[in-house]
């Protein structure tokens, strides 16, 4: 393998890793606060891409505005999802709420088939985003360079929100101790809604960039990325944002490099993430950056 090829794979892996990181953050935020795997997160990602698709086709707005509005709208859908499907079950056993999440995921998928039709749709990306740059013999799609940049900007913003604002402080408090935080006068519902909004917003941004990169939308496009990003969150230590980002990059780079170095294993690409998950869970169940939580009696 020449150095050019390697750099090309590296760029691809980084952009895939950034996408995974964006989606994984949504999982990790929600899990940190509610201790819930939001199974429908992959479908939120899918919805984001589809809303942007319809926005470009049916509104006269410029593409960047459509992308922003689509992300906000998807964020609101995520917020509604929590209100309808998870909030009534907050005090039930965890299995119940998990089943509700799986049900929501299937509902979105089938609604997607019903409304958007099962046939693949070509994402109408602005032309310059689909260009190919040639840097010193390495040809890389423009979008593969833009994705990491957007991801880093969003991550900086997110870190600012969580570390410096009052809502962020409330989020951190909730994930440390749910009950104590509610006793301190934190409006739990508001914070949870905000968390779902942010997570879904990021997933939608990821979905739109996914659409630009892979140019194809199908209603079940969110399933595999959804599962893989949950795995990324687990690998990094669920509940930890830095961990989710690291996990996303490990998964994205690992997947691309696996195919690059061992082309015979291409068919096993989707299994790679799951094997990694099981290994991590067996060796270090709390993930790379997670804290050990003692079992309370």
């Amino acid at each position: 393998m020449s150095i050019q090829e390697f750099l090309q794979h590296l760029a691809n892996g980084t952009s895939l890793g950034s996408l995974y990181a964006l989606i994984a953050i949504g999982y990790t935020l929600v899990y940190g606060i509610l201790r819930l795997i939001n199974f429908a997160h992959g479908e939120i990602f899918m919805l984001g891409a589809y809303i942007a698709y319809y926005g470009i086709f049916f509104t006269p707005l410029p593409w960047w505005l459509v992308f922003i509005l689509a992300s906000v709208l998807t964020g609101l859908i995520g917020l509604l999802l929590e209100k309808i499907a998870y909030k009534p079950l907050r005090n039930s056993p965890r299995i119940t709420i998990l089943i509700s999440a799986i049900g929501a995921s299937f509902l979105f998928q089938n609604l997607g088939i019903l409304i958007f039709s099962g046939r693949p749709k070509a994402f109408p990306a602005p032309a310059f985003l689909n260009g190919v740059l040639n840097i010193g013999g390495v040809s890389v799609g423009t979008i593969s360079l833009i994705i990491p940049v957007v991801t880093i900007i969003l991550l900086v913003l997110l870190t600012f929100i969580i570390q410096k604002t009052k809502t962020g402080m409330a989020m951190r408090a909730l994930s440390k101790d749910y009950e104590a935080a509610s006793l301190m006068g934190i409006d739990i519902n508001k914070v949870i809604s905000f968390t779902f909004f942010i997570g879904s917003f990021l997933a939608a941004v990821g979905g739109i960039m996914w659409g630009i990169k892979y140019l194809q939308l199908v209603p079940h496009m969110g399933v595999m990325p959804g599962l893989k990003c949950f795995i990324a969150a687990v690998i990094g230590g669920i509940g930890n944002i830095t961990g989710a980002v690291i996990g996303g990059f490990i998964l994205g780079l690992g997947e691309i490099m696996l195919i690059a170095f061992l082309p015979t294993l291409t068919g096993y690409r989707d299994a790679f993430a799951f094997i990694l998950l099981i290994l991590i869970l067996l060796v270090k169940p709390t993930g790379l950056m997670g804290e050990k939580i003692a079992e309370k009696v």
Partner: protein
Amino acid sequence: MKDNKIIKYIICVVVAIIAMIFLNFVLDSYKVRVLNLCFIYIILGLSMNLINGFTGLFSLGHAGFMAIGAYTVAILTMTPEMKEMNYYMKPMVSFLQQINMPFIVALIIGGLLAALFGFLIGAPVLKLTDDYLAIATLGFSEIIRVVIINLQSVTNGALGLKGIPQKTNQFFVKLLRDIFGISLSHSINLLWAGIGAIITIVFMFLLMKGSYGKAFKAIREDEIAARSMGVNLFKHKVMSFTIGSFLAGIGGGLLAVSLGTIDPTLFKFSLTWNIILIVVLGGMGNINGTIISAIVVTIAMEALRFLDEPLNLGFIQTPALPGLRMVVFSIILMTVIIFKKDNVLKSTLVKVRGRYAKN
């Protein structure tokens, strides 16, 4: 008194078997197929209820174990000529190519193989707690699917297997033709799945009555309390998981024979979802509920197929709506989960009974 009860149960089982033989001849081929599917889903629902409902382990790996059972049965029962026709992209491993076994042996091997995988997977994974267990088992079922797609010389990869010999009622057909002169139109035999379902139901009742069942329930209610009462958590969890995988393998094998064609896309997560739907509607940890909801859901899934087709509502004609059927089922599941939380069937039955039977 106790003898009386046992006799009652035996009579029930005998009546059920006679009814099955009877239905096998009376119903047309489509209805027999649906009924057959009902029995298979009873087995699958109970096996998932054992793991999820009774032991409280949230496993999402059912489709994987079913795939193991289905592929084992298919590979072991297909004739060498049939295999040659199927494996045109890549020839099959010659050892497997020659194998041809009677159905019942293949089915049991399929179940045992699924159980072996369940044991191997369960031993490490069952140390995890609920959400992690869910995602790890889901991961395993996906890995099994990916392996099936890629092991082309054994499983025929993404092409799937066609022409799995369906278990016909040749014996009865011959008997009928020779003695009574009646000929049958359809080829599926209800008895395999039916007897499988009856054995599963009886087994589940006995298991849940015994000390193992009590230990499973104790683990579900409170792991720490169960452990301090001397229940070996790990042993019981692995046991429940292995038995559940065995039954899932049997169900998968029966499904393969009933469909006649299998391919890897059949064993996606949506198959597990169907079984979750049955278990949730029937009530977690409720054997009777699972049986009833398996029958209701299977028949409803078939009966509501018209939803996917163009609808004529009298005043408005809608185009074909693929996906509407599953939307309806998703909404039912969500509504049940959100509003009733648990044991829907049981509580409604109690209500109905309270209204109409004054005792």
